[in-house]
């Protein structure tokens, strides 16, 4: 763990180095194109959920900001992109940008409240904001379609060339590329001085002012960035499925993404992605067999992971590998 490094810079460089497992992971993400062609739509949903979980990881895993209302930003992005597509602007990329801006704007406004609270108060506040937005979208049925959802979204082909096909080839390609680019941004961010400051807030918010740091400004910034990324995820869902239902803003989605991140391992960037894969594939398989028991197994898995793998599945794997290396060396 604490081996000697030639210089402090090299040590920090080593923290940010691309691991071979990471490269292998992103190559493996291409496998569905070859081996699971029937599941490309599912793969696209997984990539979108992974992006959503990644955005939560930035605030929860790195800055220690708990949220039970993160679907608010996913939903805003979904409705923004959906409304654009419905009202005659079906260009996907500009739709993503506008959706991200809309979610970021609301996230920035909310961040002034969020930055001032922690723990239980924060859970209640984010939960409350999520419920507010859900009900607002429900009652504004003229705009959102209410409980019937937003119908009649017409997406233009990507770059004017690639149509969103029934098999999900374009959808998965699009979602995966956007996930990867957003991941690069997040990865860059966590290895920057700002990323270090976020970990400082997570590790000891009391010490931060004593070293001259304004935690609130940092929290406002990361909350806005995370909201934008969640908005992109929501927009991807709206664009690749051409529908937006009220559940994009629902409490269930906020809870699910939290479960996904905790299962996979918070504060590790890949935790949310791994969690999304396990969760979505398992749901696809189990719910085919016995839909009503799906949450029974998720509940069991969640309890087991939190009890025995406090750092999630990825944290458990990392521990296993490092102890194995320790033994062989």
């Amino acid at each position: 763990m604490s081996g000697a490094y030639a210089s402090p810079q090299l040590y920090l460089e080593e923290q940010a180095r691309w691991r071979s497992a990471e490269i292998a992971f992103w190559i493996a993400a291409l496998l569905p194109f070859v081996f699971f062609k029937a599941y490309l739509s599912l793969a696209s949903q997984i990539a979108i959920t992974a992006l959503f979980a990644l955005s939560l990881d930035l605030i929860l895993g790195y800055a220690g900001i708990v949220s039970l209302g993160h679907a608010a930003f996913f939903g805003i992005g979904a409705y923004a992109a959906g409304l654009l597509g419905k009202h005659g602007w079906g260009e996907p990329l500009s739709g993503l940008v506008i959706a991200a801006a809309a979610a970021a704007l609301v996230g920035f406004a909310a961040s002034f409240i969020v930055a001032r609270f922690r723990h239980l108060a924060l859970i209640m506040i984010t939960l409350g904001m999520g419920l507010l937005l859900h009900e607002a979208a429900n009652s504004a049925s003229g705009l959102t379609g209410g409980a019937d959802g937003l119908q009649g979204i017409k997406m233009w082909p990507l770059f004017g060339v690639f149509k969103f096909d029934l098999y999900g080839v374009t959808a998965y390609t699009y979602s995966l590329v956007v996930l990867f680019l957003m991941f690069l941004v997040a990865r860059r961010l966590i290895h920057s001085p700002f990323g270090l400051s976020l970990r400082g807030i997570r590790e000891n918010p009391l010490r931060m002012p004593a070293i001259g740091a304004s935690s609130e400004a940092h929290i406002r910034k990361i909350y806005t960035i995370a909201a934008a990324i969640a908005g992109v995820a929501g927009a991807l869902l709206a664009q690749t499925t051409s529908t937006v239902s009220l559940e994009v803003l629902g409490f269930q989605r906020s809870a699910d993404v939290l479960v996904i991140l905790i299962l996979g391992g918070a504060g590790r960037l890949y935790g949310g992605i791994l969690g999304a894969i396990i969760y979505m594939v398992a749901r696809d398989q189990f719910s085919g067999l016995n839909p009503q028991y799906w949450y029974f197994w998720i509940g069991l898995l969640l309890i087991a992971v939190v009890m025995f793998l406090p750092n999630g599945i990825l944290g458990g794997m990392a521990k296993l590998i490092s102890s194995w290396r320790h033994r062989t060396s």
Partner: protein
Amino acid sequence: MAPQDIVTAPALATRGLDKSFGSLLVAGGIELALPQGARYALIGPNGAGKTTLINLMTGMLAPDAGQVLLDGEDITSLKPEQRVKKGLVRTFQINQLFPRLSALEAVTLAICERQGHGGAWWKRLHGYREAVEEAHGILASLHLGENCYRPARELPYGQQRLLEIALALAAKPRVLLLDEPAAGVPESESAELFTAISGLPADITVLFIEHDMNIVFRFATRIIVLVGGRVLLEGSPQEIAADPLVREVYLGKKGHHG
């Protein structure tokens, strides 16, 4: 330094600082003036309000009345982080570290925050070479260089106390308030820790809380005695040791005859 600076106000001063928690007075009319470069010890029995005074000075508690002045400037309305930026820095009696950050990361964090890079999210951390080297230098000067890649929570307790000080030094203090820096450290190691403290640059004003009178008389040039939230006495170690009131209230129990 310009000539007019020499006659300026003390590095840190308080004017009529009052604070009560309900009916309990924890600070009453505290008037202090610490000249630049002084080494002050703050002593007093348990519950005298020593930590409270540090909390009031650093802005972690708001006073009911009175002012805190840093180099003559009224900083009473500034937030704690703003006071740190102006050079008023503290450590904690109970470790306030970043448990899962390595010592090097923690000190680099404090330096980046001081330099205003804390919000820089596009440039890689290891690109800030000077900050990283400065962090390593601070850690090495406190004999933490060997262990600087280990998470704070894995360090031996004595080294954690040193990291507490390293974090404060990273903020480039002009006035450093040390709340029982040797708390919990075995007596044999506490002298070593204070040797490190006395090796700090002479232009830094230091105020430390300490119970061990041998340490106090060895390292302080001035002593403030706080009892029941009020300054009982301030003076040189000789004056304090000779004062009958101090001997009765505080030193008497310890049986110190300095």
